């Protein structure tokens, strides 16, 4: 049996799954102030009467880190940057306690100027003086050579052993210094809180006799073990939309192209699945207004949901962006898109008389027949969703490409399907699908698809290995791993090395058997020519365990 729990802004959903069937599902309001309690309340309700030893997997998707960062409640952290030449960081507004120190590494990982011990010590003194204990140290091109970051950490720790120092090269080695700085800073800010939360969840599971441990859903739709997540708390942001997209995939399990439409109370989230693969945001997740290196699905949030308030502004119908409560047909205070649909469908969702009354108040102002008003509301909702879906496709098609064949073979896909997720899916998806000229897909598990998606998502892991045969060095973009290689290695050797590292990391995380399902997603090699002869090669090889579902899940019944 599997448990999937998805903590949303309004509700926490949970499912208990066995053999592709949902045995039990639970929905309870989320207490933002006490997420742990919300989660455990749902868990207890879910497993009532079930032998806890039969539960083989528990997966959580939670908003804890997202909320921490959004509300500025993370721990005070200092950011120490080693930028070298380039942008002038004085114009950046990265973090309140930022320091810039001398030292530089270039794109080949060569140290072009060194750290100044006295300067770093000075910075340490200032940080300690502010009573700050968490320090993020991030250097430009530290993924190609992290010696300056390591040296700065050493100097800081020597004087202030109580500091906890985080290095950019250990958090993320993808190209983009600013995003690395932000991601490392956020990691430092949220580490302790997440650590505490993880321990409490661990204990709570043990108390309940569940011995399997717990996995956490990441923004990329994959999971990682709770104990690993302690190193990478930022990876847990935006797991809600990832849960929906994985839920949509779990319900369909094919290679078709779909848009996933998760209609919530106040917002609707859209995601794309292209030929069976969820689409990633090309720039990484934006957290609190800053780009990060967190790999996340390309999700678009539309400020409009099933419970958005419907008004007349004197000349047209306006929907949202606010929500005053549930829809009128469930006893809510105001007319909503859900009511408009309920009226047109003759009370399919809730009490027809309540929808009618709420809508008539608006229709009176507008001097429109109530059915006409309801039609206009549904029309508006569908139109807004349609515009956003088309926009998403367009921006995906216009993503920059850097090779001739990518431009020549311009990506074009056609949309097969609109998958509805969430309770209000049934109301709008058929009309939206008609407008988009594709099929509508709604499943009986659509209302709990997000929790289901979390429950069956498989672990993911992605690494990029950069090798430089002229300098005879290589480095990974994760964990600050680096080493030496021979000057004559070829692409095949580098691929083998990357695979070994992936397997090693997967074993360390207890997900070793998934490494067999890894795939190479990046294979670049460049000859380094000086004069008219080749003096070395540069390789970038990426290998990943891509998002998907766990082996034992064969689809829903």
């Amino acid at each position, binding site marked *: 049996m599997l448990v999937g729990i998805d903590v949303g802004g309004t509700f926490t959903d949970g499912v208990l799954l066995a053999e592709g069937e949902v045995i039990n599902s639970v929905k309870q309001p989320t207490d933002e102030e006490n997420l742990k309690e919300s989660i455990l309340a749902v868990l207890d309700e879910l497993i009532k009467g079930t032998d806890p030893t039969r539960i083989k997997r528990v997966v959580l998707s939670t908003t804890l880190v997202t909320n921490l960062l959004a509300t500025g409640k993370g721990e005070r952290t200092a950011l120490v940057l080693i930028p070298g*030449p380039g942008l002038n960081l004085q114009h950046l*507004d990265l973090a309140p306690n930022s320091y810039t120190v001398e030292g530089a590494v270039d794109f080949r990982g060569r140290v072009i100027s060194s750290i100044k011990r006295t300067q770093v010590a000075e910075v340490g003194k200032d940080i300690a003086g502010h009573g700050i204990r968490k320090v993020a140290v991030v250097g430009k091109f530290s993924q190609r050579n992290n010696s300056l970051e390591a040296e700065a950490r050493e100097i800081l720790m020597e004087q202030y052993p109580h500091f906890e120092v985080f290095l950019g090269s250990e958090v993320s080695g993808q190209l983009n210094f600013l995003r690395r700085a932000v991601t490392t800073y956020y990691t430092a800010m949220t580490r302790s809180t997440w650590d505490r939360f993880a321990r409490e969840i661990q204990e709570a599971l043990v108390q309940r006799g569940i011995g399997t441990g717990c996995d956490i859903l990441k923004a990329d739709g994959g999971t990682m073990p709770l104990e690993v997540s302690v190193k990478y708390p930022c990876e847990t942001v935006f797991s809600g939309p990832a849960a929906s997209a994985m839920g949509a995939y779990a319900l369909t399990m094919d290679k078709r192209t779909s848009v996933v439409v998760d209609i919530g109370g106040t917002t609707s989230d859209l995601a794309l699945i292209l030929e069976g693969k969820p689409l990633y945001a090309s720039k990484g997740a*934006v*957290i609190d207004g*800053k*780009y990060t290196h967190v790999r996340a699905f390309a999700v678009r949030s539309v400020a409009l949901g099933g419970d958005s308030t419907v008004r007349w502004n004197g000349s047209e119908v306006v929907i949202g962006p606010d929500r005053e409560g549930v829809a009128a047909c469930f006893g809510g205070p105001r007319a909503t898109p859900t009511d408009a649909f309920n009226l047109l469908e003759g009370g399919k969702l809730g009490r027809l008389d309540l929808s009618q009354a709420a809508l008539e108040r608006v229709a009176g102002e507008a001097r429109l027949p109530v059915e006409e008003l309801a039609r206009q509301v549904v029309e508006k909702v569908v139109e807004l969703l349609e515009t956003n879906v088309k926009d998403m496709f367009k921006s995906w098609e216009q993503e920059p490409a*850097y090779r001739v064949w990518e*431009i*020549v073979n311009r990506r074009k896909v056609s949309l097969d399907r609109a998958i509805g997720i969430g309770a209000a899916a049934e109301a709008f998806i058929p009309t939206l699908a008609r407008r988009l000229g594709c099929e509508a897909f709604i499943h009986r598990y659509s209302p709990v698809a997000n929790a289901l998606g979390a429950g069956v998502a498989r672990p993911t892991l992605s690494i990029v290995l950069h090798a430089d045969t002229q300098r005879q060095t290589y480095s990974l973009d994760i964990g600050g791993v680096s080493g030496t290689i021979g000057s004559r290695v070829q692409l095949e050797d580098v691929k083998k090395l990357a695979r070994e590292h992936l397997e090693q990391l997967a074993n360390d995380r207890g997900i070793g058997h998934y490494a067999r399902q890894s795939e190479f997603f990046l294979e670049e090699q460049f000859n380094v020519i000086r004069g008219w002869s080749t003096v070395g090669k*540069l390789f970038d090889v990426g290998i990943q365990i891509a998002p998907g579902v766990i082996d034992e899940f064969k689809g829903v019944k």
Partner: protein
Amino acid sequence: MKRSEPRFWQSREKAGKPTQTGIVFFPAFDWAISPTHPEREERLLYTRDQLFEEGIMDLPQIREYQPRLAELKDIARVHFCVPSIEAQITEAHLVAAGGALVIADALMNGEVRNGFALVRPPGHHSMRVTHGNRGFCNINNEPIMIEYLRKKYGIKRIAIVDTDVHHGDGTQDIYWHDPDVLFISFHQDGRTLYPGSGFTDEIGGPLALGTTLNVPLPPGTTDTGINFVLEELVLPVLEKFQPELVVNSAGQDNHYTDPLANMRFSARGYAVLNERLAPDIAVLEGGYSVETALPYVNLGILMAMAGIDYSNLYEPDYQADKFRESSDRMRVLERIVRELTTVFDNREALVAAAREKHDQFARRYRRIFYDTDYIHEEQQENLRMCPDCPGYWTIDSQALHQVGERYQVYCISVPVQGCPRCHKDAVELYEKMIAAPDRRFDFVYLQDRVDDVYRQFDVTRKQERVL
């Protein structure tokens, strides 16, 4: 989440006008002339590393675009390709030219305030007639973009400033007879570097005298010297010419580390130059110091165009007072600036004198060598000295390839400003030549810029292709 858009950069722009700088970054990681050629896959690799690691694409001042494929007609508007356009290009060339077109559209649609097409392969050595590859170039990206701008948006007056270390002889050739396109090139003195042209007496065709200006820089010229030329010659001339658009043909091989040339320009110097010149569009040309110059120079140009502070940009081995401008070089530059200022200021009188000198047609005979493909071309050109327009012209071109292949073609071109009489006479000449073809020619071409129609007649097969 408080805001969905990143906001960690303080923008200094006024509201109302477009504030962003567009960029097409197209490194063509799967294209090379040959594996060890300077124009190879690796060329923009470190530039990519530097730009992406810098995170500059994330800044709100920058908007990245994807290139597209240019159409064959876009190329026919500029070049006579022998034996065909397809024979002269690869898909990479279409993407590079298309990258420039994307930036042009973004600028004209008001999406960006300026733009940088950071693309390869380059093009500024490609001339009107193209039999093969010269100086790493097959087709010329800037004129393809400029003629597209003229056709689609009705732009008339344009200035091109070519800052590549090699003389932009291809672009010069294409606009030799065009009084509405001001072409200014500064480059290492042609007596010391490929292509061996670009002297101060090359000032344009008889009806466009003074709208081509060449500044041959002495080897070793530094930031000081180049910026002197910019301030004392280029900017005043632009001020007088009043172009609607300024295009920078942005070669980066004036850099002090370039392996193919001997100049001493720095990344900072390039940034200052672009800030002062303020081009509407920059298009990458040459620059082969792939590790020590390109990452920093490209970043500098982009920062300058986007109004981003570049005070922290420098090469790893840069020292502010590393290079001093010599008084000898400064004297040379002062003389050139004086000479060319006079030429430009007297351009109307120069054209009037040329009209006196020539009767109905002005003739020119030229030899052109293609270094990459080893082709010898001979051209005989005739320009009609029209009183009402820049005149239509014809080129009789013979090319001998290394492998013994030989082509002879006849090209007729009506300029975009062509008067009804020139237009009519040129079309009639073409019609006459294909009705009773002269067997010496393999192909006859008509480049009709007035009607935007491009015809190529295959004499042997008696087939016509119209674009």
